[in-house]
């Protein structure tokens, strides 16, 4: 779903400074906004602060100054466990499922914050969306393949019907075929109206599904624009995204 400029802002940050140590901020004043229904990819070289940026929004890394808002609500100081209640779901890059729990328990756990009468219906909805998971609900999640684990992590995040879904490198460690499946699923989820912020190293695949891209370099936003434009910009691609352009034929 391509979001138009008249859509309200779903999530924004203003001058966000964040990092594990107050004296060593990794994110150094990021102004960022994503509109409702957009799929925005956050790109940048290694060490640019992409993961720290989204972890700070999710409440997992301390924010030292600046602000983060979800719609009209300031979520800067909201603890991580309450952000999901505000409609912000986060899928970490690694260890994003409970490996010792069954698939069903992973989903029920996430459904806990919903009203009781809604929980099993939502679990059923997610099984319909991810039939691979529905086939073996009592299987221990640690026994799933990499792609299935990502699907479970996404399903777990979606169970509360979040307004914004943030994913930190969902393609990490997956084969190209599985990456294509995961990204196709993300595009389909975005088409239902869920705003998605995607941190990615897999530039080509991410730009192919994104509406817009933001490039972080050394903790600040260096470039942003429509994904298609950035993908075609050889200077941006070579300087910031590590995508080497083909040399012209002699």
């Amino acid at each position, binding site marked *: 779903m391509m979001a138009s400029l008249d859509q309200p802002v779903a999530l924004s940050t203003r001058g966000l400074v964040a990092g594990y140590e107050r004296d060593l901020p990794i994110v150094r004043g990021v102004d960022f906004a994503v509109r409702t229904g957009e799929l925005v990819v956050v790109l940048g070289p290694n060490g640019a602060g992409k993961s720290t940026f989204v972890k700070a929004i*999710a*409440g*997992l890394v301390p924010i030292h100054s600046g602000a983060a808002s979800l719609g009209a609500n300031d979520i800067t100081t909201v*603890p*991580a*466990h*309450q952000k*999901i*209640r505000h409609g912000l779901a*986060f899928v*970490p890059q690694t*260890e*994003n*499922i*409970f*490996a*010792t*729990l069954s698939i069903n*328990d992973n989903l*029920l*756990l*996430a459904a*806990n*914050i919903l009203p009781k009468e809604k929980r099993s219906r939502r679990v059923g909805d997610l099984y319909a969306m991810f039939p691979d998971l529905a086939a073996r609900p009592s299987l221990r999640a640690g026994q799933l393949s990499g792609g299935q684990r990502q699907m479970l992590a996404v399903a*777990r995040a979606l169970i*509360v019907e979040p307004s914004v879904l943030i994913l930190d490198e969902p393609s990490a460690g997956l084969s190209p075929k599985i990456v294509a499946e995961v990204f196709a699923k993300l595009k389909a989820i975005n088409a239902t109206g869920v705003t998605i912020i995607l941190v990615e190293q897999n530039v080509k695949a991410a730009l192919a599904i994104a509406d817009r891209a933001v490039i972080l370099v050394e903790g600040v936003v260096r470039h942003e624009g429509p994904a298609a434009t950035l993908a075609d910009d050889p200077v941006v691609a070579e300087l910031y995204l590590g995508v080497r352009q083909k040399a012209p034929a002699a």
Partner: protein
Amino acid sequence: MNPQALMDGLITGAMIGLGAIGVTLTYSILRFANFAHGEFLSWGAYFALAVASALGAMSSALLAPIGPFSFGWALPIAAVVAVVLTGGLALLVDALLFGRLRDRKSTVIIMVMASFGAALTLRSLLEFIATSKPAYYTQALQIALPLGGGLRATPDQLLSLAVSAVLVVAVHQLLTRTAIGRSMRAVSENPQLAGVVGIEVRHVIRVVWLLGAALACVAGISAGLLVQIRPQMGLDLLLPLFAAAILGGIGSVPGAMLAGLIVGLAEAFAVQLIGAEWRAAIAFAILVLVLLLRPQGLFGRPE
């Protein structure tokens, strides 16, 4: 060899198992070995003694033995109150000590040392209040009933076994079938991810303290009923509790109970085979052997 060692071992093992469940839960969720856990057994036993004595003073009818047992209604009522009080004591220790250290992101060794300090403080305070003189819930003598196969047990001992069995099943069901149980298992595996999915980790930690202390209290009352009540009783059971928690596999409730029974039986048979003076060494030997041969325990998963 006297077959009665089997019954003695099962009875002691059930007490150890109950206490070990608390150790294994706090270890798996708070990620440190709480050496103050044994003190919750002692305090629980004394809370029950104080409340039962007060109830008995108010109404002597509450002291009249119930059926075949040696105690009156004062003790079961006192046990319920003691469970609540012991849970409150555990929450107080957490609020005053462990919670503050967690907020400062203290290392595991600091938490362990703090638990040693808490154990000493709690034990000394209890000794100051109650003196080191042994106390008893009841002075009534019970005749052991023949159970067949050369085994005998008193009604109190059989009740203690039954209560332990019911509690193990109840805690296992709580962990595997309820929302709070799933939350506890999630926090045990990955506290940060648990926060991301909306679990309030502090709430889960409070529940773990309450549950662990409640089970320790029941184990303490059971030990007090079957043996005697002393301020040192928790300290004496500490090594067997840790041996059982580690043998069972950290985080496993059925494992802790099964391992508690194994430790209890090993102690009882050791008394018969090599002498009572070796009883205390058995738990230590089991602990060392498990750490060397199967550090993940019977039901734990390798790191």
